[in-house]
């Protein structure tokens, strides 16, 4: 196991991400922040005050559950847990920043885009991720990246967040048992 970020570095990376988003946001369109369950949701919630510090006040915050849109539902079987989407605003016309913890194959993001488009028509959708570990299987690229790391297919990049996992850090595992 290798530690990629400790608690302090994670905080610094989020601040950097917030500044990048705030710098790119259009001034004349309501901004919405939507996190993908579970850790994208937590990251989006943490980004809210950081964006305020960077001079951007998002008008909306929401949570997206992409389970029902995944293309691997038949292979993940009964492990899928549906907790529902919580987007109680009209996302039509917003500048919507989709937040996830790790960008890997791009399939979660593909599912998230389908889910968002069933809910409305944002003026634009941008993608913010904490870690880009490469090895994409779909033509999807992030707009805002905390940091890049090169990985092999057998690696597991694990983002741990206080709210979910009890501690803040990002780890690279060689295999599930590592």
């Amino acid at each position, binding site marked *: 196991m290798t530690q990629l970020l400790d608690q302090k570095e994670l905080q610094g990376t989020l601040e950097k991400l917030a500044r990048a988003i705030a710098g790119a946001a259009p001034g004349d369109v309501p901004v919405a922040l939507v996190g993908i369950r579970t850790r994208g949701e937590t990251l989006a919630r943490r980004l809210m005050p950081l964006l305020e510090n960077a001079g951007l006040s998002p008008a909306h915050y929401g949570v997206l559950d992409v*389970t029902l*849109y995944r293309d691997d539902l038949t292979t993940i079987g*009964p492990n899928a847990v*549906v907790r529902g989407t919580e987007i109680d605003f009209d996302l039509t016309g917003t500048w919507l920043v989709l937040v996830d913890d790790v960008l890997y194959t791009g399939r979660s993001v593909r599912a998230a885009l*389908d889910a968002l488009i069933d809910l409305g028509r944002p003026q634009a959708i941008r993608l913010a991720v904490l870690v880009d570990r490469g090895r994409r299987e779909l033509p999807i690229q992030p707009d805002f990246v905390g940091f890049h790391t090169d990985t092999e297919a057998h690696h597991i990049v694990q983002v741990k967040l206080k709210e979910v996992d009890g501690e803040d850090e990002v780890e690279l595992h060689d295999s599930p048992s590592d």
Partner: protein
Amino acid sequence: MTAPVTDTPVWTRKHLLALADLSREEILHVLDTAQGFQEVSTRSVKKVPALRGRVVVNMFFEDSTRTRMSFELAAQRLSADVIDFSERVSSTKKGETLIDTARNIEAMGVDIMVLRHPAAGAALHLSQAVDCCVVNAGDGQHAHPTQALLDLFTIRERKGRIDGLNVAIVGDIGHSRVARSDVRGLQKLGANVTLVGPPTLVPKAFEQMGTRVTSDFEGVLPEMDVINMLRIQKERMSASGFPSVREYVRLFGMNHERLGRCKPDVLIMHPGPVNRGIELAADVADGPHSSILRQVTNGLAVRMAVLFLCQQAAAGTPVM
């Protein structure tokens, strides 16, 4: 997705046959999953692609337009294709058995069978004969698991909990699959169940299930958090052991006066359709204590969850 999914799944059943089979954790998992599905029905596009390319067949050997519609809509909201098997035009009356019919339908490539049948045990029998998922939509007097799950969901939604609640089920308990399934589910989630009705319709044997059995409706009113009024089957009214309609209404009907003797926040439930003025007075059925229409709405989310979970479990089964 990042973290490896290593948790043991709570739900591994490809069939839903009766609540008696389920653990407390499994029941709660269905309710939590249904909670996640609630939101789909509030969207402008009321559809998710979770069962796209799957085929659900409604096999109803008893009339039940509402349950059938609820399952059909649930399947459609998951993007499944739905076909309908109606007994009237089928060959069952020409001597084809349920299993023969089912095997023929399965041969067309069906993923989930939703079965309503007048014989108790029909769903179990079917599940042993086919490879696809089987969801029991009511079998004789045995079980009606999705009705019980939607009742539990509604109670949890309105009361915030089920554990420790006092719940009365009132009516023709002996003939009721809803009552049997409700009792199982409520007990597993920690409610205290009282069964109320004329002694001829509420067999004392139910006490062996750990419920209280009484014919004193008035006496239990003040302590109940939830009162579930079962539908009286008018066709059974003429049978022996059944009181006259007038007598039934006098002793076991829920009306405005009786509601006044209940807890102020009592929840009045009914599986529908209501015989207005018999088991339930119209003003109570339409009043603020009633959850009748909410039960119908919740039924959709619960059935989506059941179809989704059973299909997921079947997909996760290694193909031999």
